[in-house]
């Protein structure tokens, strides 16, 4: 006979205000198997847990029901309390009376109490069918995969590699560095971005524990935490990196000119190119879309001028496989396309540019040698209007969220303009100035004083052309009047949006993503770097818009998490997986077909006791099984059961309401 203990939590006022907790306890006491029931203000606190531990011993309980918050919150906490009292932790069931009752039925205490009592009854019925389970140990492959070579990926890779764990860093473009490599100076210290980034890029390339795979993409990821297998496509670069010295003869002579992505298309690059002079690895690749040798079979100049004979027009994409134990996703961000702002004349007026285009122009290594110019006539602008929140905080045209970095980089741009163009003046149209961060508010205040920039609180309604100037009409909400500013150049602070490949990559990795395309963390506050899939972590703007300090912090946090997984030779795995009762198995192999992980194989067993005739039955690889239960539902002979969610447990719940 089962002896169940029921522990009902007040959760301070969270539950007790909307559910009659003592009544739930009384209801629980009426269940035949319940031998002990009690309430307490905070069940998760140490005294609360102590009550559970004491009751287990005193009342010789065989299973425990805690009626409190969601099992996703404190199941682990209470399982530990059971272990500490010498009881198998999987004999616990949690009745979720907070998220599923008190918080959602706040207007009807009677109904909420009745529902809570039902939830407790269901949990008691389930717990009676609970079995003792034991954690499984599985071996771990100590190698991490970092996807994306921006500052987030670089930081994560270096931190993991410094702990002497091998890292495979996969970067989509020909060079690591990401968006940070395109920046001139960084807020709030005005550090030169290249000066702080490029040494780290070189460290990555030369680190003995880092295998850098540039110009490549992850195609597949199979397996589970500690034992993933990644398929990586190395795109054909048409250049043999082993022999190439990076001398540059090829791209100097290449006759094909195409817009340069690194400089936001302001100048041209060649069809064979390195993205920028400080690229790591500093080896060129041929852009197959534009190379006339590859598209039309004519040219071949780069091959002729290459002294090392490194050009190979016949090179094919190569698929390589790596066994890895954990993944850090650091795919970064894109910028929102401001096309919907038609009233600003985006696309019609050449002198409206985006912030990243402005950033490239004021960069010392940029296309205009660090001086901003008007794209229409090449003149240096004097009056520059910066418009913030282009796409951000704009439900009608863009997205609802704040992109976080625009206030700060626009401030930086006013300073850079002030430094580079004497006699210039900045006008900033803004909604709010959001400068939350160490030294950020001080930076904005100082910039406003030093540059004398005019800050206008309000939205721009229209931009039109007057001669060779742009007239920016907007509202100054603080004086309640329409203002017009004559501008030589207009800079739009476009919103941060997730990398457009994020949804595809998320699906491939098996992690979830939100409606914008940012990958979802396991918990917004307490598990901000983990995903719901064990062993996959998020760094930087893959998860949400972030500035560089936050990105680096999150990347290092990922590294710590990865090192945690690799701390031992084996890792503990949840025992809630499927098992086959060979006696019942008819060998139909339906389960083999539906298993998403290929965790089910077949084996031969004797027909009967001592028989030499053999028959086929299913066998589950417990290291690979993730416990989804697909196989259980398709099993015709009811030979498979999923520990923790067995048929008797669920049926008990159903019939006990």
């Amino acid at each position, binding site marked *: 006979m089962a002896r169940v203990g029921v522990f009902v939590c007040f959760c301070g006022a969270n539950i007790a205000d909307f559910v009659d907790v003592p009544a739930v306890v009384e209801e629980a006491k009426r269940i035949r198997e319940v031998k002990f029931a009690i309430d307490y203000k905070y069940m998760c606190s140490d005294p609360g847990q102590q009550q559970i531990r004491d009751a287990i011993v005193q009342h010789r309980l065989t299973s425990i029901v805690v009626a409190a918050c969601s099992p996703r919150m404190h199941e682990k906490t209470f399982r530990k309390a059971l272990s500490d009292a010498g009881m198998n932790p999987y004999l616990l069931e949690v009745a979720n009376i907070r998220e599923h009752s008190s918080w959602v039925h*706040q207007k009807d205490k009677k109904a909420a109490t009745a529902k809570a009592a039902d939830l407790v009854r269901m949990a008691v019925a389930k717990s009676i069918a609970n079995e003792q389970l034991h954690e499984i140990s599985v071996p771990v492959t100590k190698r991490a995969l970092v996807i994306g070579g921006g500052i987030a990926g670089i930081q994560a890779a270096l931190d993991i590699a410094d702990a002497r764990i091998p890292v495979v860093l996969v970067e989509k473009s020909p060079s690591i560095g990401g968006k940070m490599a395109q920046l001139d100076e960084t807020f709030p210290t005005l550090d030169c971005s290249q000066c702080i980034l490029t040494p780290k890029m070189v460290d990555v390339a030369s680190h003995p524990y880092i295998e850098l795979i540039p110009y490549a993409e992850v195609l597949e990821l199979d397996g589970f935490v500690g034992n993933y297998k990644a398929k990586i496509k190395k795109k054909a670069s048409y250049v043999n990196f082993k022999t190439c010295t990076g001398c540059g003869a090829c791209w100097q002579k290449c006759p094909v000119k195409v817009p340069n992505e690194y400089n936001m298309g302001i100048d041209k690059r060649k069809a064979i190119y390195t993205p920028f002079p400080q690229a790591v690895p500093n080896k060129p690749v041929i852009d197959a879309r534009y190379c006339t040798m590859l598209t039309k079979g004519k040219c071949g100049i780069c091959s002729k001028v290459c002294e090392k004979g490194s050009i190979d027009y016949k090179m094919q994409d190569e698929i390589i496989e790596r066994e890895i134990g954990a993944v850090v996703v650091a795919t970064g961000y894109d910028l929102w396309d401001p096309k919907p702002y038609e009233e600003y004349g985006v696309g019609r007026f050449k002198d409206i540019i985006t912030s990243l285009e402005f950033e490239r122009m004021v960069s010392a290594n940029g296309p205009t040698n660090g001086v901003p110019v008007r794209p229409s006539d090449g003149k240096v602008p004097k009056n520059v209007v910066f418009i913030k929140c282009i796409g951000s905080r704009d439900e009608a045209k863009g997205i609802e969220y704040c992109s976080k970095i625009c206030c700060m980089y626009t401030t930086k741009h006013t300073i850079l303009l002030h430094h580079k163009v004497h006699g210039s003046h900045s006008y900033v149209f803004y909604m709010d100035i959001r400068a939350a961060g160490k030294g950020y508010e001080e930076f904005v205040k100082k910039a406003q004083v030093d540059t004398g920039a005019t800050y206008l609180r309000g939205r721009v309604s229209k931009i039109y052309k007057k001669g060779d100037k742009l007239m920016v009409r907007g509202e100054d909400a603080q004086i309640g009047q329409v203002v017009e500013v004559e501008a030589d150049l207009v800079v739009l602070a476009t919103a941060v949006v997730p990398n457009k490949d994020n949804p595809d990559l998320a699906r491939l990795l098996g992690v979830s993503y939100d409606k914008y395309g940012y990958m979802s963390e396991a918990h917004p506050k307490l598990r901000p770097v983990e995903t719901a899939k064990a062993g996959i972590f998020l760094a930087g703007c893959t998860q949400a818009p972030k500035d560089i300090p936050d990105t680096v912090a999150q990347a290092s946090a990922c590294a710590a998490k990865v090192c945690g997984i690799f701390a031992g030779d084996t890792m503990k795995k949840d025992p809630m997986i499927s098992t086959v009762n060979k006696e019942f198995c008819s060998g139909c192999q339906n389960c083999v077909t539906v298993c998403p992980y290929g965790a089910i194989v077949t084996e031969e067993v004797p027909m009967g006791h001592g028989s030499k005739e053999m028959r086929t039955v299913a066998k589950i690889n417990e290291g690979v099984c993730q416990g989804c*239960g697909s196989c259980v539902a398709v099993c015709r002979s009811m030979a498979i059961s999923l520990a923790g969610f067995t048929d008797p447990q669920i049926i008990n719940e159903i019939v006990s309401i």
Partner: protein
Amino acid sequence: MEAAVNNQLVSIEKPEIVAPPDWEPVIIGILCNWCSYAGSDLTGTSRIQYPPNIRIIRVPCSSRVDPWFLIKSLQTTADGVLVSGCHPGDCHYISGNYYARRRFLVTKKLLNFVGFHENRVQFSWVSAAEGPKFAKVVAKVTEDIKKLGPLHLYKKENFEK
């Protein structure tokens, strides 16, 4: 999915059985742990209110839901059942919800064939971020079941009488 369950057979549930005035339906919600259960938790943390008729059962994945559970629920305690999983393509277990969807369609046809009204069992996709959607789904299902009244068809006690 609704479009796929076409050429409905006429329900043989008897509308003449009048519900008692204080009758409230019991609805069993079988939710997958990673999306819909997390979504229902979010409904709670966001304090979004919904009708208190649903009793939630947690399963790892919607593919764990055996048609037997639905039948057993309707036979014993429930007036209606809601099964909810991750959006197609977002399954935590890669492809589980696709199996669940197909199996559910067949089960629904079977239940319809033996006489249950099509609204007695319902299916939805609710992600971990869709707290408000979960409340809406529950409200709709509750309203549908209330309209149908108490379930008597094939109830175990009716056979025992």
